[in-house]
């Protein structure tokens, strides 16, 4: 039974987490390798469990009831197609991250702050995906949040990291509270917390709507939906790079899983306005996330903002799925949901790849600020090559995997003129435009990230003396790169594997993808659209090979090295290059006034004055300004007012208690 093996492996991960501090305390030299090696093996076992349950059909799926936890509930676990699909996403990411960490962890100054929490974090994420009752789910969720918080705080000497940890803790508690309320509503007055009971219970429509809102707040805050994303660009970069990869690539997917599980599976029939809400949030996150990403100077923060974008894309797909599901357009709903889950998988691959690349840059040069990097392609050739692959994949360029899932979402959008609701008819094409805009901006963002970091000339001594990362790190990245290519060139089997998931969620599946001819994928029918990543890849390879062969054989292959031309005035100073800020300037100028209320001021000294001219730039984070700052003010104000309550006499306290008691009794009396 894969589920038993999966649960044993999770227990094993918990065991590793317990043993890790002992290893560290005894100063065992191989502690890092042992912990990450064990995590690697256990994640691999879990991956096999997930794969067998996903591909092997119902024989490999199943449910388990353990007599632990709350006495009248116990602990329920289930391995159905949905949890199996996300188990694969989680554990593939976890496996590769553990492998990477065997090399990366050697650079850790205080391994005791990372090693115990890392396997615990993995165990938490796996348990969330496997849980089949609200209680176990919430415990696992909180376990995942707290262990990842500990990992964010691993480098706590840095004040910025402490702030990141604080914001993360606040947002995580808020998110869990929302989930708690959502499950409370789902369980109803009888308090049935088991998923199978929730699924069969009848839900009042407006309460279901409330559950959706609570799930958007709870799971959305973990996934990084705008405007709940504020913690993400702070916390993800603060953790060690392999943990950043897991948080961005995998933990956000666990949140997506929670959303899908409740909204598509548990709560029953959706209403059309749900789709409106989800689409709006998704499209907003996609564009705002990538606009932030284009302007970042910190490589890891840039990647974190791009996660916000990709989560937005996933939610656009889910919103489309909801829209089609309410209108009983099963084929279209299956396409949208499959595309969405496939994008979640793809994003976990290339985002991990990119974070690993950023980790290599960090270990190789000690820098995260791209303004101080440059020219790393010469000193870190393999990292550069692999990071470039990740950039191509995330920018949705064929023949890699990012393109396939975004292409499928665009195909789903083209099916939506048949929707009866007018609001959706206007919103869907608009979100399609937002999706296209986000994809184009992502390309600009990653040209900038790769170009400034790896190309051009070194901008600091750190970049000049950078060195290549360890073999472990490079090999982990090769594995991810290879899978990005495979998923892009042969997407058919991946989509077929997801058909039980969409069967479970929307009661239908995409057509079975043909192997012949040429591994093409067909979203709805062949006359509407088809795409063959294999042929595109093959043609690109053949065309470039032919061009190189013809030119080298029949023309010239001579090369001469010379100083750069630069229109005749090459300047050896690296300060004359384009910088990250100057690269982003045109985009900031075009989009900044809308998205950030950007204001650019020029202070020119009067003629004759020798003072330098000054350029000032102010960008405003509107989400922070209009949502969080007032909220913070309100909390502080309330705290200030309520402070009086701390200095009352015993009589006043007693009368307060009495008043509260009377109030509650009155409440209970009127309720009943």
């Amino acid at each position, binding site marked *: 039974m894969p589920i038993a093996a999966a649960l044993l492996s999770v227990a094993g991960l918990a065991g590793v987490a317990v043993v890790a501090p002992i290893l560290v305390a005894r100063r065992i030299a191989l502690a890092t390798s042992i912990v990450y090696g064990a995590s690697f093996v256990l994640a691999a076992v879990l991956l096999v469990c997930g794969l067998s349950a996903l591909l092997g059909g119902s024989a490999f799926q199943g449910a388990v009831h353990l007599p632990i936890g709350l006495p009248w509930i116990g602990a329920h676990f289930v391995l159905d197609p949905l949890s199996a699909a996300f188990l694969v996403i989680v554990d593939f990411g976890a496996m590769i991250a553990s492998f990477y960490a065997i090399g990366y962890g050697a650079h850790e100054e205080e391994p005791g702050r990372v090693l115990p929490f890392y396997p615990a974090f993995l165990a938490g994420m796996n348990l969330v995906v496997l849980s089949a009752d609200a209680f176990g789910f919430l415990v696992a969720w909180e376990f995942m949040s707290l262990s990842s918080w500990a990992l964010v705080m691993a480098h706590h000497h840095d004040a910025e990291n402490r702030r990141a940890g604080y914001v993360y803790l606040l947002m995580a508690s808020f998110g869990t509270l929302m989930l708690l309320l959502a499950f409370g509503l789902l369980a109803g007055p009888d308090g049935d917390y088991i998923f199978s009971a929730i699924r069969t219970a009848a839900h009042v429509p407006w309460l279901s709507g409330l559950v959706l809102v609570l799930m958007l707040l709870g799971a959305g805050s973990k996934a990084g939906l705008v405007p709940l994303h504020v913690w993400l660009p702070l916390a993800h970069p603060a953790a060690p790079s392999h943990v950043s990869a897991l948080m961005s690539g995998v933990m956000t997917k666990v949140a997506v899983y929670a959303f899908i599980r409740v909204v598509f599976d548990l709560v029953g029939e959706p209403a059309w306005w749900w789709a409106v809400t989800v689409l709006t949030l998704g499209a907003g996150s996609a564009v705002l996330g990538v606009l932030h990403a284009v302007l970042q100077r910190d490589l890891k923060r840039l990647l974190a903002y791009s996660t916000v974008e990709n989560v937005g894309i996933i939610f656009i797909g889910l919103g489309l799925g909801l829209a089609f599901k309410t209108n009983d357009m099963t084929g279209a709903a299956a396409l949208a949901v499959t595309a969405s889950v496939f994008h979640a998988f793809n994003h976990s691959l290339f985002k991990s790849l990119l974070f690993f690349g950023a980790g290599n840059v960090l270990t190789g040069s000690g820098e995260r600020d791209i303004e101080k990097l440059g020219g790393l392609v010469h000193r870190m050739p393999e990292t550069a090559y692999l990071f470039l692959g990740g950039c191509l994949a995330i920018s949705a360029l*064929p023949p890699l995997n990012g393109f396939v899932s975004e292409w499928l979402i665009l195909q789903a959008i083209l099916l939506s003129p048949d929707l009866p609701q007018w609001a959706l008819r206007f919103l869907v094409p608009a979100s399609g435009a937002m999706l296209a805009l986000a994809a184009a901006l992502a390309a600009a963002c990653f040209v900038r990230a790769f170009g400034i970091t790896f190309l051009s000339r070194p901008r600091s001594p750190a970049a000049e003396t950078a060195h290549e990362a360890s073999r472990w790190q490079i090999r982990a990245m090769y594995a991810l790169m290879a899978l990005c290519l495979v998923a892009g060139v042969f997407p058919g089997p991946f989509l077929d594997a997801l058909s039980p998931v969409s069967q479970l969620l929307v009661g239908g599946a995409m057509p079975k993808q043909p192997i012949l001819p040429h591994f093409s994928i067909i979203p709805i029918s062949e006359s509407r659209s088809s795409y063959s990543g294999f042929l595109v890849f093959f043609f690109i*390879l053949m065309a470039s090979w032919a061009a190189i062969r013809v030119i080298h054989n029949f023309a010239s292959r001579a090369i001469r090295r010379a100083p750069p031309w630069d229109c005749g005035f090459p300047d050896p100073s690296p300060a004359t290059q384009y910088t990250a800020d100057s690269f982003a300037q045109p985009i900031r100028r*075009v989009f900044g006034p809308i998205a950030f209320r950007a204001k650019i001021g020029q202070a020119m000294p009067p003629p004759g004055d020798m003072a330098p001219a000054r350029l000032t730039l102010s960008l405003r984070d509107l989400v922070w300004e209009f949502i969080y700052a007032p909220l913070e003010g309100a909390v502080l104000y309330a705290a200030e007012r309520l402070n009086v309550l701390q200095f009352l006499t015993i009589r006043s306290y007693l009368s307060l208690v009495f008043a509260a008691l009377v109030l509650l009794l009155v409440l209970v009396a009127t309720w009943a």
Partner: protein
Amino acid sequence: MGLILAILVQGIQMILVLALAPGLVGFTRKVKARLLRRQGPSILQPYRDLLRLVRKEAVLADNASWLFRNAPYLIFATTWVAAALVPTFATGLHFSWAADLIAITALLGSARFFLALAGMDIGTAFGGIGSSREMLFSTLAEPAMIMIVFTVALVAGSTQLSTVAAFMVDHSTLRVSLGLALIGLIIVALTENARVPVDNPATHLELTMVHEAMVLEYSGRHLAVIELASALKLLLYISLIACIFAPWGMARQDDGLIGMAIGAVTWIGKLAVGGFLMVLFETAIAKMRVFRVPEFVGGALMLGLLGTLLLFVSRSF
């Protein structure tokens, strides 16, 4: 036998677009010169230029990386594949369903991605300025293109170009949405090909340049390959406009050799007309300042979105 023939026809299309692309550039230069009352170089001049360039040695900057050396071939390959997937003289070619219009757009995006990176590789101010501006224009041109694809696809019920072309021949009616899409597509085509109101293909050493700034450091065969890729891109866009908005004369899947010959002749005619109109427009208009361009391309995005919205309101627009 049928399969071999189908692959052969597809191969002919690939060779044909490659062979005609420099000729199209030569033709537009000739027409432009004539419109400016100059004699102008021969139509064959681009072929001679390319031959001269590939025979020369390539001069690389001292710090040029592997990416700089390989990017031209990748740019060329992705552009060539994209150009070969647009139906030119015949629809329903053997590999035409390998990629639809969205994929073709994305393939051009890949080419641009490598070109922009190559511009940044040496670390000169010119390369950076070119890449930065190119990416700015693409952030608006690409969504505009996707919205135009949406408009066309909603009318024709497919994103496959062959199906679209066949539909347009059978149901040729005037539609508001298609008119909007045509204007949008022309704007996108001018932007993507670095033509006059956006960029000037004839200048060197001018701070307003975009495309030429990125390829400033290239020489010899690398430059030749990049020039060929830009010629292919021009041919691609004119063929694309012709394929969607003027698909008459194209050979169908079961037409014989004569049908294909007719298709080829009409296609070359369409290229000539398209090139002529483009040059006519170019000579009549001045180049824009860089920060006026986003408004120009944003206009295309709005037109595409408007076309799509109209079709979401009613299929009859």
